[in-house]
């Protein structure tokens, strides 16, 4: 009997899966979405890199050629080539932020030691004529007042402006330190920014804290879960609904039980979603592999195998849980519009989970974190978050998993019953008392 049951479930899974995967719309969507994503990212990037091929011709106007040269070097060193700091693999956050502001374009800088009003007018006309792109006015007065003007045909972008002012700050400081008799290397030493490195003490062991990686991992999971549930959960609902509106299920019910059908549907349609996500992840990985490899060597994003395993497990179970709720909705309703009204049942726990993320991340061992990570509707996000932040005791993980699996099974059985009876009441939406009645009535 169990064999027949597994066989039937398997047949339903196979049918649901193959029929969906073979559909043209599935293939088109699977290929189209990455194409759109790549388009959305690559085309602007391409455009900006095209822009960067055009070199900005600037004139730096200072009172002395030496200071002008210093400014020129400062801008060129960090603008045109990788700076020494950037090559340092252990760059800290501050450096990184500076890097992010770094303009993508190159510079050609001309030093002009004639800071006269006549020269300013001459340069203005050169800008107007398109001979140069702009000039920086660094007269002694301007430097003393720390108020430097940039004259250009196009106002620089905000990011570039802050980067440029950083470079000027540094150039001016170096200049002034030099004037006070501090040598270039000494000045570099003095200007070296502070690096703050956080360490995590975990089980008596000190590890380099990895807030960024962890946050990234949790966030990726939540986004993936949310997207998968919203995208594919609906198709589980639709699959159940579709059968209700036809009499296919009468034929099927004369061969298989409603539980077999529901389980098969849930897993089959679910697997379609996973296949699509899987294909996308592989595509993304191939696309981003060079960047990832570079990043991995820096140890910047480091995700432990435990976290990865928890990711897979909790994602799958969370996906199954919410899909099974969708299936239950599909069993109760008679049209998709009704289903949309009931979607909050699914979205609400997910939103609450997201709100709980902050408190749980701050205090993963607080009672509220422990217990909320046991609740099946929150545990896919919260227990996974706790594992990523700081692995909780094994019994807590086990209990959370057991509750989650139990809930999925319970919803599935419930849903099979509702489906079984609800399906035979054509064109009529079930009221709550009716559902309760069906549940009492249904014998299997």
């Amino acid at each position, binding site marked *: 009997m169990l064999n027949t049951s597994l066989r039937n479930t398997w*047949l339903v899974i196979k049918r649901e899966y193959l029929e969906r995967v073979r559909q043209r719309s599935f293939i088109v969507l699977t290929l189209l979405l990455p194409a759109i994503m790549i388009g959305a990212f690559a085309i602007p990037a391409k455009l900006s890199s095209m822009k960067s091929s055009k070199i900005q011709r600037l004139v730096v106007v200072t009172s002395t050629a030496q200071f002008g040269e210093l400014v020129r070097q400062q801008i060129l060193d960090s603008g045109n080539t990788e700076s020494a700091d950037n090559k340092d693999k252990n760059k800290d956050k501050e450096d990184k932020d500076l890097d992010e502001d770094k303009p993508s374009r190159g510079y050609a800088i001309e030093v002009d030691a004639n800071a006269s009003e006549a020269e300013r007018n001459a340069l203005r006309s050169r800008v107007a004529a398109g001979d140069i792109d702009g000039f920086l006015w660094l007269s002694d007065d301007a430097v003393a007042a720390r108020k430097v003007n940039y004259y250009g045909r196009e106002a620089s972008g905000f990011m570039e402006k802050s980067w440029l002012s950083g470079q000027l700050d540094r150039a001016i400081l170096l200049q002034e330190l030099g004037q006070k008799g501090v040598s270039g290397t000494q000045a570099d030493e003095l200007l070296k920014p502070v690096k703050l490195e956080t360490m995590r003490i975990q089980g008596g062991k000190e590890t380099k804290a990895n807030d960024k990686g962890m946050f990234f991992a949790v966030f990726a999971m939540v986004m993936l879960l949310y997207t998968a549930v919203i995208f594919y959960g609906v198709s589980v609902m639709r699959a159940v609904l579709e059968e209700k509106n036809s009499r296919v299920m009468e034929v099927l019910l004369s061969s298989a039980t409603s539980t077999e059908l529901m389980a098969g549907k849930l897993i089959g349609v679910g697997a379609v979603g996973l296949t699509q996500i899987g294909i996308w992840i592989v595509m993304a990985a191939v696309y981003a592999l060079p960047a990832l490899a570079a990043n991995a060597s820096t140890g910047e994003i480091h995700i432990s195998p435990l976290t990865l395993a928890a990711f897979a497990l909790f994602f799958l179970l969370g996906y199954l849980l919410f899909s099974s709720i969708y299936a239950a909705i599909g069993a109760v309703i008679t049209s998709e519009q009704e289903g949309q009204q009931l979607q909050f049942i699914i979205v609400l726990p997910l939103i609450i989970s997201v709100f709980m993320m902050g408190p749980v991340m701050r205090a993963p061992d607080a009672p509220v974190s422990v217990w909320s990570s046991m609740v099946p509707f929150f545990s896919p996000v919260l227990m996974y978050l706790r594992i990523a932040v700081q692995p909780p005791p094994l019994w807590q993980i086990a209990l959370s998993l057991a509750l989650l699996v139990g809930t999925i099974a319970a919803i599935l059985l419930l849903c099979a019953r509702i489906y079984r009876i609800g399906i035979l009441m054509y064109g009529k939406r079930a009221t709550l008392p009716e559902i309760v009645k069906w549940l009492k009535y249904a014998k299997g």
Partner: protein
Amino acid sequence: MTSVNTVELNQIRKCYDEFVAVDDLSLAIRPGEVYGLLGPNGAGKTSTLRMMIGITFPDSGSVSMFGEPLRRAHVQRLGYLPEERGLYKKMKVLDQLVFLGELKGLSAHDATQRSLQWCERLGLKDWTGKKVEELSKGMQQKAQFIGAVVHDPQFVVMDEPFSGLDPSSAVVLKDAFLDLKNAGKTLLFSTHRMDTAERLCDSICLINHGRAVLEGDLAKIRAGYGKRNVQIKYEGDAKFLNDTKLVQSFNDYGNFVEVRLAAGADAQDLLRAASAGARINKFELMEPSLEEIFIEAVGKANA
């Protein structure tokens, strides 16, 4: 033939909320016979069939199949054809039939072979790779029929198998139907068309408002109603038609008139009365049609 009935319904009753779909219904289907479940739309035919194949359960009463209380294992041995829309629209015909066959326990290979054989036989061979939605209604019904019989069930249950079929499809299906009967299968089908039932069935159950009005062997039922109809062709005086002692009612069809004899009247008296004033060209005693039996039985039940 064994004496164990294929199906027995024993005083089953089924309510949906306040509505009583089937009420105190009993019937027995013998192995190897063609059984018709008849009645107007909404009489409770589909509800009855569903209880017979384990989709729903009666509120009270019992269903037994192959001599035992209905179990899931029995359901595996029957084939079911629902009233239209019983196939996945987007699925290819052959895939669909193989899927249904496999669910009934066939291996993928057997399911494929048998589906192909049936498709060939019913003229669907060129359509096996098409999606169900691309098929005409008649072809869909044929595919549905194959889905019900592909696993060679002992007992085939069909809900309105002939509804909406063009005459040529109906003939193909009827032939397949009779082949199954000749192969010793038990067939049950519901219909609201009395003439179809009249031609195909060995036994019938007439239901109206969820209750059995008549049940049993069709020939015996007919005999029980006797030859109460007379077809008369005449020339001359028609006043004999108004003799209420002899004539209960009549229908004038132009070429002939069909007379229903009054209760207790003798056909010979009618002949004498008629020939007294008219020239009789034809005088034939007829068995009542199922339709008339039904109307009369319902009339009695309501009275």
